[in-house]
């Protein structure tokens, strides 16, 4: 009976998909040995990169897709997380148990301040003010001569997960850790989006005035989502610092924020799988096309343009439509 008090399938409820999700994660977990068997170990690193950007894009999708808040400065939080790991490593702190949560905390704190100011504005002005803050952090990093300035700061060794039988220096192990973190982030975001807070966030995207009129605290909800998104982006940054062995101001360049936005829109803004699908498709297209032609950017642009024109709500929309149809069919069968 209590089940009926909490509607499971409102318009704002987002399903992550059924059994195929487990199949997908099983396939992803089996990837490193498979790649090794066919002699393509190098692609383990590429796959890790995809997972890390999937985390970052999923976090951006929380505010951009579900919240309708188009942040053009999300790379700043990735960069801040990366720099936190880099600076701590520079000071001799190698434990991931310390540096990764620290990265999330620092990025979350930065998002708390930036969000509190930026959420005063709306629409295009919000886009631009988030960009402004990201640019400030970018130039701040450029000016940090003690931490490499323009050239960036090398992170010579990957963080250590003391107490776990995992050596992050090994590419496959690092991939699995990234996969576990991606799964945790994805599950967490799914819960959040389908929670009362997530519903308010989506409702405010549709009509802020009405949500406020019915007693929803729009600012608090949007600010909370902004901070959570920032903290998760910080985690992605921490992983990226470890993967690249380098943190540099380029991580916070506005073009990086733009690329994250493009990933989310390509995959499907406001769809649970939007961020991860977009990140994977974007990075894999980049990888594939650059192997085929030196003019790969032209082809990438043409493909993106085709997606805008023919799949208006992104690639995840295709999955979604399929998923809903299946669910409806099942519901009809039960009735």
């Amino acid at each position, binding site marked *: 009976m209590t089940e009926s008090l909490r509607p499971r399938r409102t318009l704002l409820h987002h399903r992550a998909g059924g059994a195929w999700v487990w199949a997908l994660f099983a396939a992803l977990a089996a990837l490193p040995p498979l790649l090794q068997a066919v002699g393509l170990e190098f692609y383990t690193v590429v796959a890790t990169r995809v997972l890390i950007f999937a985390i970052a894009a999923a976090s951006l999708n929380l505010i951009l897709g579900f919240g309708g808040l188009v942040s053009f400065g999300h790379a700043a939080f990735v960069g801040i997380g990366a720099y936190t790991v880099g600076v701590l490593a520079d000071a001799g702190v190698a434990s991931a148990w310390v540096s990764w949560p620290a990265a999330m905390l620092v990025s979350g704190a930065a998002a708390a301040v930036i969000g509190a100011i930026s959420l005063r504005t709306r629409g295009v002005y919000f886009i631009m003010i988030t960009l402004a803050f990201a*640019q400030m952090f970018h130039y701040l990093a450029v000016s940090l001569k003690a931490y490499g300035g323009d050239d960036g700061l090398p992170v010579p060794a990957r963080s250590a997960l003391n107490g776990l039988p995992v050596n992050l220096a090994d590419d496959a192990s690092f991939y699995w850790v990234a996969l576990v973190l991606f799964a945790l982030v994805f599950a967490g975001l799914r819960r959040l989006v389908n929670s009362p807070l997530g519903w308010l966030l989506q409702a405010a995207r549709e009509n802020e005035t009405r949500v406020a009129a019915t007693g929803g605290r729009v600012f608090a909800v949007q600010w909370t989502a902004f901070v959570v998104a920032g903290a998760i982006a910080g985690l992605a940054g921490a992983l990226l610092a470890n993967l690249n062995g380098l943190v540099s101001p380029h991580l916070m360049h506005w073009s990086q924020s*733009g690329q994250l936005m493009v990933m989310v*829109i*390509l995959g499907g803004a406001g769809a649970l799988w939007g961020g991860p699908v977009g990140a994977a498709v974007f990075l894999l297209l980049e990888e594939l096309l650059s192997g085929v032609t030196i003019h790969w950017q032209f082809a990438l642009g043409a493909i*993106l343009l085709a997606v805008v024109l023919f799949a208006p709500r992104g690639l995840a929309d295709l999955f979604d439509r399929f998923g809903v149809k299946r669910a409806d069919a099942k519901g009809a069968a039960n009735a």
Partner: protein
Amino acid sequence: MDLILVAEQALNGLQFGLMLFLLAAGLTLVFGIMDLINLAHGSLYMIGAYLAAAAIAAGASFLVAVLAAVAGTALFGMLLEVTLLRRLYQRDHLSQVLATFALILMLNEGVRMIWGEQPLLLNTPAALSGPVELLPGLMYPAYRLLIIGVGLAVAVGLYLLVTRTRWGMWVRAGASNRAMTTAMGVPADRLFTAVFGIGAALCALAGSLLGPLLAVQVGMGESILILAFVVIVIGGIGSIRGALVGALLVGLVDTGSRTLLPAVLRQVASPEVASTLGPSIAAILIYVLMAAVLFWKPRGLFPARG
């Protein structure tokens, strides 16, 4: 001596601000009237610069090259509007961002295919390569004076076009209430194409005039595009007056802080601190300016819509 430095930097700031205005004017009109976020606006600036460089390489005089670049880019811009961008007006901002980002990739790569990876050289015309003595002790490059002159002339011309002609009336109406304007029978299609063509022409003018001062290279449009967006947001979207004020503010703050700030810092701090801190504060300052403006006036200085 210091006063001369300040005057020189003020002129540099004015020159840069006016060039930013040429970009921002088209951007703010396209944004204000058609509600289109055109990230590829900077690519038109790049195309203008490349066309001018190509015309000069083919033996044209500087004047002819600039005119050819302006005409060519305007045509290209209108073609782009008719074939692609007009499909995006009814779409949400996110689709527009993705589509015009895709366009940036394609145009950058297209330019690279035609003209190669190496930056092109665009020389100042010989007649304007010398300095002019404006005041005793104040020597200023003649070419930069020409840019200031052209920029001012275009700003005045654009102001008259927008405030004194029927066409300008439509544009202003479109910026303040698009739906009503269309309902009142303004030929929206032709108006949009024309606005886009003029925006592209202004981009090409800025690109071909700045070509000799900066390098003509792939990707030159993106960094200046961000500045142009800063300008129109500070000024208030859709407002020509706002674009002019915003452009001059950004031009002066950017140029001034780059050269004057380190000098000021040297007075109060050690040279070492001044040389590291100066440039980064200078780079941050325009974004601080924008954030501050938006903090107190969340819709910019001169919002076009009420």
